[in-house]
């Protein structure tokens, strides 16, 4: 298209801009969560996350050091206190650590922007104070003036963006944190891996039979699978929970593994069959002429060649089981709460800690990080699977 003569370049720019706008709109929500998870509680409370990317301007009231302890005799009855406002404040250790840059300052709350850094403020009767942009100050005056409390200085300073890993430390690695995600993370993993691997094999055999073996009723069975693709799993909750209780599985990992296996089966069979049907007939017939049995053909020819489809389904099932809430609620999580999964943990947090965004954001990001990694690494297979899996 781009090569066609006479295409207007303004239109091309419009396309670029619209796509950029669309992309920004789509990643903005996730970015908010990600950024928030790296901010301190105070930061989250004091400004929107989008402000975290830019230097923040804040007004602060700082105080010079106590003249009774720190003043230096200059002779002639004059005394001086010097130091750094931020060091006196205790927010940094040394003047070198100061990140804020003072824009304007003042000595009275009615004129907090009276001076710029480097100015010397005349406090009357020969008392002066000079403040530099990094908070260094020199305060001079006579004996009477240089006593009592330190001089107040109102500063308007710009601080660079600041991020912290403390939230992750807290949510993941603090063993004392009962709302932590570490246990839930491992529980989720424990649910996910068997629930991803087991259905693949079972489905692959069935898919081979439906794709390449001739038997009466095959078309009917394929229709059966297609029909089950859309059956809402809500219908399965009570009957199966009852069944699990009756046969003694109850609520627990075994139950949730079986449930995920069953619920994932239609898509698995459908995806794999569609893929296997597309394999060249000649290759399979050649293997038959070569003397391979159906079992050998399946293991040695079909399985290796179906790798893309197997990977597609594996990603689907992984994302689905990892992100699932409903099946875990019904089949896994019992009254003790020992087997809670991350999605459940987050819903709990939404209820109990609804305003504590540093915990919520961090926990949510912990739970979506793994799927995102899988997504970006395996996107090719995911797309392929989607294309094969949507009923045509």
């Amino acid at each position, binding site marked *: 298209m781009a090569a066609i003569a006479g295409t207007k370049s303004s239109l091309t720019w419009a396309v670029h801009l619209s796509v950029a706008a669309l992309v920004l709109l*789509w990643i903005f929500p996730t970015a908010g969560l990600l950024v928030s998870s790296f901010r301190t509680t105070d930061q989250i409370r004091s400004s929107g996350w989008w402000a975290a990317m830019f230097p923040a301007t804040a007004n602060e009231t700082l105080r010079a050091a106590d003249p009774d302890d720190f003043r230096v005799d200059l002779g002639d009855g004059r005394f001086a206190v010097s130091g750094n406002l931020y060091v006196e404040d205790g927010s940094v250790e040394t003047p070198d650590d100061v990140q804020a840059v003072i824009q304007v300052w003042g000595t009275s709350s009615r004129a907090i922007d009276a001076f710029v850094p480097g100015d010397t403020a005349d406090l009357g009767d020969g008392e002066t104070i000079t403040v530099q942009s990094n908070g260094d100050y020199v305060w001079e005056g006579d004996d009477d003036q240089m006593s009592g409390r330190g001089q107040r200085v109102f500063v308007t300073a710009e601080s660079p963006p600041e991020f912290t890993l403390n939230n992750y430390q807290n949510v993941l690695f603090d063993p004392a944190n009962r709302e932590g995600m570490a246990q839930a993370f491992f529980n989720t993993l424990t649910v996910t891996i068997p629930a991803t691997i087991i259905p693949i094999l079972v489905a692959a055999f069935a898919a081979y*039979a439906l794709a390449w*073996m001739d038997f009466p009723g095959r078309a009917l069975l394929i229709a*059966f699978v297609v029909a089950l693709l859309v059956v809402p799993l809500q219908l399965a909750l009570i009957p199966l929970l009852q069944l699990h209780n009756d046969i003694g599985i109850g609520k627990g990992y075994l139950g949730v593994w079986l449930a995920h296996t069953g619920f994932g089966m239609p898509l698995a069979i459908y995806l794999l069959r569609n893929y296997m049907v597309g394999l060249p007939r000649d290759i399979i017939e050649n293997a038959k002429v070569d003397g391979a049995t159906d079992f050998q053909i399946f293991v040695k020819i079909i399985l290796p060649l179906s790798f893309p489809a197997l990977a597609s389904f594996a990603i689907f099932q992984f994302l689905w089981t990892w*992100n699932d809430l409903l099946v875990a609620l019904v089949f896994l999580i019992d009254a003790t709460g020992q087997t809670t999964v991350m999605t459940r943990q987050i819903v709990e947090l939404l209820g109990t800690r609804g305003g504590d965004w540093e915990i919520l954001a961090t926990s949510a990001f912990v739970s979506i990080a793994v799927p995102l990694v899988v997504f970006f690494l395996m996107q090719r297979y995911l797309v392929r699977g989607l294309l094969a899996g949507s*009923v045509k």
Partner: protein
Amino acid sequence: MNPAVQGLITIIIGVGGCVGYFYFSNQILDKFIFPATGPQAGRNISRANAVRPWLFLFPALFALSLYLAYPVFETLRLSLTDRNAGGAFVGLDNYTQMFGEDKFWEAVRNNLLWLLIVPAASTAFGLLAAQLTDRISWGNIAKSLIFMPMAISFVGAAVIFKLIYDARPEDMAQIGIMNAVYLQLGGESPITWLTVPFWNNIFLMVVLIWIQTGFAMVILSAALRGIPEETIEAAIIDGANPFQVFFKIKMPQIAGTIVVVWTTITIVVLKVFDIVFAMTNGQWETQVLANYMYDKLFRANDWGVGSASAIIIMLMVTPILVWNVYNARKEMR
């Protein structure tokens, strides 16, 4: 036993069991039941080949039947019984009771609203994104980013959007972008968006649209690429402008795919549970059927009405089910 170890053992038993089952059942069939030797070798081989597909199919069919087919009928039965009366048959009492509840009609109304808006919006945005990204050099990166929410759980998305809709008291800094923008634009005081009836439904739908647009985009983009380039070039030579090319040449050729995307998202919408459960739990008139059902089943412990509402969901899915089966059968011929 540590669940991780238990999981590992399950994988081994599961995978090993499957392989073992398939291998040995084939062996038994070929070596003992219908051995391919002796005077009846030929007949035995064809008999073994007639049985073999069922060996391959059995575990999957068992799982399908038990976990999806049986529950449909069992749920139907439960919806006609009363658990408190020891499972006695009560006819349509559960349905009558359900139809008498305002919350149920609210859920039905909201579900219909979801069905109307989410598939349409997702498909439209997906089509727009597909069409635009196909024409630029960094389109694949753009696609990847728009597609990304697909990987995020509904619960994760709920948290993400709760942050967006967050409201704080008037004198504090607004950390939800909605309120920040609203106040910037001259709004008087922050609004707790999720408690505003009707509109809160839309705010919940936005979450699903945000997730499903990527799906629609990926499928539609593939369909757009599948359109023969010649038809587009012919249209350009015929003097069609880009909009005419899109609406008169491309759209008709991907109509089938649009239907597929639409129905697939429709099914997702009908099952939507997590988003509502996590964000409002059906309060402030945002109830939907799946969450209503969960409420009945596990909070009110009313299995009869819960099952009845599940059957309603099933009924709403059925037209798509029939359509899919019809198409699949047509394609196989």
